[in-house]
């Protein structure tokens, strides 16, 4: 165990490490400036448990109906050596596949060791590329690895890497419906970025075997139920854009060592479980530890990160908590109290006496701030004037 891993292990404490998956990497890439999330994910901290212990339980769960539907659809598509999938690839995508093998890489001779499975995945994938036959091969449950924040994260995709003539396609099975050729845009976007994570990880795995990245196609295949039925339908997704975004964001996630250097040595999120497993650490103490690591809260975190309610509470009074657009429109000023002071304090309608939070009154005036102040003053004046102009009409109506 090297120094970094020892630090991360200390931060995690006695809890079992959580592993990354494509979803968490995609979420990380959507807010790469957040050191808190980067550290917690790198250390494999159990975020839902920590958030609940400090009094801010995560606002999301998954319905068992959704899980059951997802699993049933996936099982159906993959049944009998992925017979339905093969038909789809042949007919819908016009792939000339005379026949195909189906390899499940879920375990190696009953041994579920991650390293062993990863090694076997790499070896089989590389062999498939270097000595391709006419037959295609479908690999289910490959175990991949991706470097995130200077550390390797294992990925266990429930997907199939389909190999034909030395070229791989990522196949992702999702249970949201494609109705009249249209699906929910957010869900397709999420599926595309997850597929991109797998493409990247698969390219990494093959690169170690000296296979060039072109061996993994940037066209991934999305399999969804058609209309209101259980019939699968396949669509190709070009994930080049997502790959670029992901690569850039992963590079931007500061290397974890740099982040660790900024943190006190003794920092830990250990819950101090007693003999019965019940946490003994005081929530206030844990919250203080969490605050040592800086967060970059934006409202989008509410759908992607288990710590969101904690961070939102911490960001109260910041313009960022009102959304990226609002922050920009308020001239990029960080605190709501500063905004109102710049806008004219006492003259702002609805703010009695223009209350100003302590510590924000003496912000140094930079050219940017002066420009923001001018904009906010004009906005406040117009708002006051228009509200007055609207008042008599209100009574008339």
């Amino acid at each position, binding site marked *: 165990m090297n120094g970094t891993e020892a630090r991360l292990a200390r931060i995690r404490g006695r809890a079992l490490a959580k592993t990354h998956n494509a979803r968490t990497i995609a979420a990380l890439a959507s807010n790469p400036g957040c050191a808190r999330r980067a550290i917690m994910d790198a250390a494999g901290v159990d975020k839902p448990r920590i958030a609940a212990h400090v009094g801010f339980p995560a606002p999301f*769960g*998954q*319905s*068992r*109906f*959704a*899980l*059951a*539907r997802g699993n049933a659809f996936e099982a159906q598509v993959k049944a009998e050596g992925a017979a339905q999938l093969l038909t789809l690839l042949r007919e819908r995508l016009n792939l000339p596949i005379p026949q195909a093998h189906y390899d499940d890489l879920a375990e190696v001779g009953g041994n579920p060791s991650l390293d062993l499975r990863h090694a076997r995945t790499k070896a089989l994938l590389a062999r498939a590329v270097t000595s391709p036959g006419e037959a295609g091969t479908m690999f289910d449950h490959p175990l991949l690895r991706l470097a995130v924040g200077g550390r390797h994260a294992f990925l266990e995709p429930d997907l199939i890497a389909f190999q034909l003539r030395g070229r791989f396609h990522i196949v992702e099975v999702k*249970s949201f*419906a494609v*109705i*009249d050729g249209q699906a*929910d845009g957010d869900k397709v976007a999420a599926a595309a970025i997850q597929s991109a994570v797998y493409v990247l990880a698969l390219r990494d795995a093959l690169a170690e075997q000296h296979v060039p990245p072109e061996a993994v196609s940037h066209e991934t295949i999305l399999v969804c*139920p058609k*209309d*209101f*039925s*259980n*019939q699968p339908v396949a669509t190709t997704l070009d994930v080049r854009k997502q790959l670029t975004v992901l690569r850039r964001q992963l590079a931007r996630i500061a290397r974890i060592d740099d982040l660790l250097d900024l943190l006190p040595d003794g920092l830990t999120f250990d819950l101090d479980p007693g003999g019965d497993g019940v946490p003994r650490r005081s929530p206030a103490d844990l919250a203080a530890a969490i605050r040592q690591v800086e967060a970059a809260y934006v*409202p*989008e975190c*509410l*759908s992607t990160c288990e710590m969101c309610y904690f961070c939102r509470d911490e960001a*109260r009074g910041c*313009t960022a*908590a*009102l*959304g990226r*657009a*609002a922050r920009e*429109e*308020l*001239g990029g000023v960080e605190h*709501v*109290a500063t*905004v*109102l002071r710049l*806008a004219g304090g006492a003259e*702002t309608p*609805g*703010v009695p006496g223009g209350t100003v939070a302590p510590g924000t009154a003496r912000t140094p005036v930079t050219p940017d701030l002066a420009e923001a102040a001018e*904009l*906010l003053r*004009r*906005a*406040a*004046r*117009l*708002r006051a*004037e*228009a*509200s007055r*102009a*609207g*008042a008599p*009409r*209100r009574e*008339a*109506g």
Partner: protein
Amino acid sequence: MSTLTSLARAVAVATGTAQRTCTVRHVHVSARPLVFVPLALAGEAVAPLAAIVGDQPQAPALLVVAEPRDRDQRFAFAADLAAVVLRYIDGYLAEQEPTPGREPATRYADAPQLLVPNQAGITFTRLLGRSTRFRRTEGPYAVPPSVPLLGRWLTFFTERAESPSSSLMLAATDVLAAHWATGQSPVEDRNLGALLGWIDPPPGMSGAQAAAAAEDPVRCPPAGPATDPTFDNEVLDQRMLAVRAARLSGDGRAFQRAAAALTAALATQLEPTWALMWRAVALLRALPEGAHVAARWDGDKDAFTWHARHVADGGPPQPRRDGAVAAARRLASLERLHEMVAAQRAFDDPLVMAEHRLAGEAFAGRVVAAEPDRVVGAGARRVLRPRITVETGDVPPAEPGGTFTSPARPGQQARVVAVTAAGGRTRVVLELRGGMGRSLTPPPGSMPALGEFVSYAAFGDGWQPPPAFPAPEDTPWTHGGPPARYAPDDDDAREDWS
């Protein structure tokens, strides 16, 4: 969103209450809207689980599907819903009014209005419409005739909901968020309970506190169509299993009991939202209506009349996808309507106009000089061209030549003649034409008087004629050529249902 709205959000944070971003209401609110709150089973494309629906706050109908994955039960639900919705629509098919000088010569005197909690409710309604409007009323899997008819009406409502000028179908969160700024982000404004908490907190609570309380799914269940996953896992699953077990056992009384327990559980998830919806209706009704809202509602009445007659004349259901010409026409119309509604909102509402003033698209100020009797030309060509000078602190027009319109006198054009600085402010000289009659003296009130506060916008509230499109049978080859004439075929009706 604009700096003005964002500033209102900042004020809301500081005061703990939502701030008005409009002085008037910009949508029509019916005297008798149909409120529809659907719930869907998680994981399925469109599997109705339950719904609460009705046009009277005291008398909702609660519809429940014991096994949403069973196609027969889904269509039984659709038939129950059709009974409520079609009866409601029928109520608007009685009284007609003349439409002077237009074709057709009459239209229905009022139109129905469908209200759902949020955008996801509109999406669900659209898919429910799509899944029912092609059903066959004979042959295998036949459904009652009311089911495809319901599908056509739901499709009609959701298509109108895309139009920025229409109030036929509204999502409560969208409408409330367009009229108030809360101290939270637009993402959080999608939660109906939290949004109403900010706007209208219960006594003794701040808006921020009420919004925080509304985020607890036990206290304030989600407004659907997605249910609370914890409810699914801890309550719904068992109750659904109990109904299934009782049905298989053949014990009629046990089945009744299990079904009643399931209905009671779903009622706890729907009734709070039902109450929120009517609170939203009351809040919106309390706002005075914007001046252009009635004219836009007339457009809705036209659309309703057109569709009702199309259905009555035996016309086909809406196709699965628009043809090229229909799609282009629809897109162009949405763009025009978007601009028209934006302008009308500004003309109806000084707070909205203030956003345009901040953006430099409008200015306002007092009239400091006026030449009401200014006449140009000679002899028979003499025309009235009064001039006024407006002193404004806003961003003035960059240079002379532009044409502006004032909400107070939309029929009058004002051309910028000169722009001069006056201390920290600007004087704009405007030449007026139109809206002053034929004589060479403007009638009283037909032009701004000295000392009057006026605003002028770089846009008018006028209706723009639609661009010309080819007829569908002349669709160019670049767009796939003329489409086959649409007729619902067996393929539409025969699709699989799981």
